[in-house]
């Protein structure tokens, strides 16, 4: 667990890379969407950027492991501990990235929801959903060839419905819906987080065998 944090810290250049990726994507959107931005577009664009950023981030959680380190981890810790620590670290980093991205997005693209607490809430829960589903997908994809393409192919259909839910819930938040009125969506997302944690716990040992 601690080691995971250390590793992540040691890879801060990679983290910086994703940070920069986020910034430049937002900047590109700022330049290319100038003047044609409605609230709906704003919202949809933001979630698409976050989805791609989490795909990139989660991909490297298994992609960067060398086989030597895998063997070392294998002898050291149980698969459950490994997958959970990976999910945890991905979630934490993703929440941080999501929040920074959100601030930047509000800065560049017009401050639509910057002070909207409900939106912040949706953002955090949504990002948890992304990282918990994608971590498992990354564990699968990392074992195959050309794993970035594979990661996108395997991951997108699984997070797409989540994305739709999030876009809907957050649009509600922008329009001033109370937390209670969008809570069914959030409950479903949390339910999915639970399910994907359970499944990861059951299925990950099978991936970790070699």
């Amino acid at each position, binding site marked *: 667990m601690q080691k995971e944090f250390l590793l992540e810290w040691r890879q801060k250049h990679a983290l910086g890379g994703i940070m920069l990726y986020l910034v430049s994507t937002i900047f590109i959107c700022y330049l290319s969407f100038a003047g044609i931005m409605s609230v709906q577009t704003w919202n949809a664009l933001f979630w698409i950027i976050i989805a791609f950023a989490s795909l990139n981030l989660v991909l490297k959680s298994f992609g960067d492991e060398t086989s030597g380190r895998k063997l070392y981890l294998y002898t050291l810790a149980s698969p459950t501990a490994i997958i959970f620590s990976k999910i945890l670290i991905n979630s934490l980093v993703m929440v941080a990235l999501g929040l920074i991205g959100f601030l930047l997005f509000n800065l560049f693209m017009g401050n639509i929801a910057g002070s909207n607490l409900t939106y912040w809430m949706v953002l955090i829960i949504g990002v948890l959903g992304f990282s918990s*589903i994608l971590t*498992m*997908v990354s564990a*699968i*994809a990392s*074992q*195959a*060839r*050309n794993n970035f393409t*594979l990661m996108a*192919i*395997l991951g*997108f*259909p*699984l997070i*797409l*419905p989540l994305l*739709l*839910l999030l876009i*809907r819930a957050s649009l509600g938040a922008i329009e001033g819906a109370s937390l209670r009125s969008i809570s*069914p*969506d959030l409950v*479903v997302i949390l*339910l*999915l987080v639970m*399910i*994907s944690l359970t*499944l*990861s716990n059951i*299925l990950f040992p*099978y*991936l970790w*065998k*070699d």
Partner: protein
Amino acid sequence: MPIKTWNYTWKIFTLILMLYVILGGLLFEVPALPVIHQTIRNIYFHVGMWFSMIFILFVGFLFSLAYLRSFNLKYDRMAYATVKTGLLFGILGIITGMIWAQNTWGTYWVNDPKLNGAAVGIMVYLAYLILRASLDDPEKRARLAAVYKIFAFVIMFVFIMILPRISGSSIHPGVDGNPALATGDLDPIMRKVFFPAILGWILFSYWIYKVVERKDKISQKINQLNADQL
């Protein structure tokens, strides 16, 4: 009944059933409903295809579980065959649905929870095929594919169950008073064809699956023999 006879009896039964469904589905009286009119006959085919796809993919889910329990490559081959068969029926279901939609809604595709759910489901299984194609070692391929399939199946199941209910307002039949499966609004004449149709399609899909599975088994054997000769 001895096993040998049973092996083809159910196929003959399926054939008769499907023949009945095609003839009855196209010829029997149907209630004249506004907008839908004769296109209501699609219910015998389109709905049957989706039922059989769900059935066959569920069987495949069980095979994947069986593989992870036993690590017997036989189950992997069977799971693979169910996906191919399920995709076949799913794509047929989408095509029949699209033709129907063009005639009743005036467009081939609408942004509707049910349609999107179907499309995403198909995408997941296509991704499964890609995943298999990018792995060479049979053991590893079987393991990863089974893990992905189980993971994806459960998550998709939750989505498809929950999504249309919470996002509401689907214009697809079967939701909010749109006539479809609810037994109350299925005409008695239609029921005479509809229920055999569902059974027929499910049996038919199982039959197709068996054929696909046997074909895979044979080509595996041939590859094995070729490899031995080299």
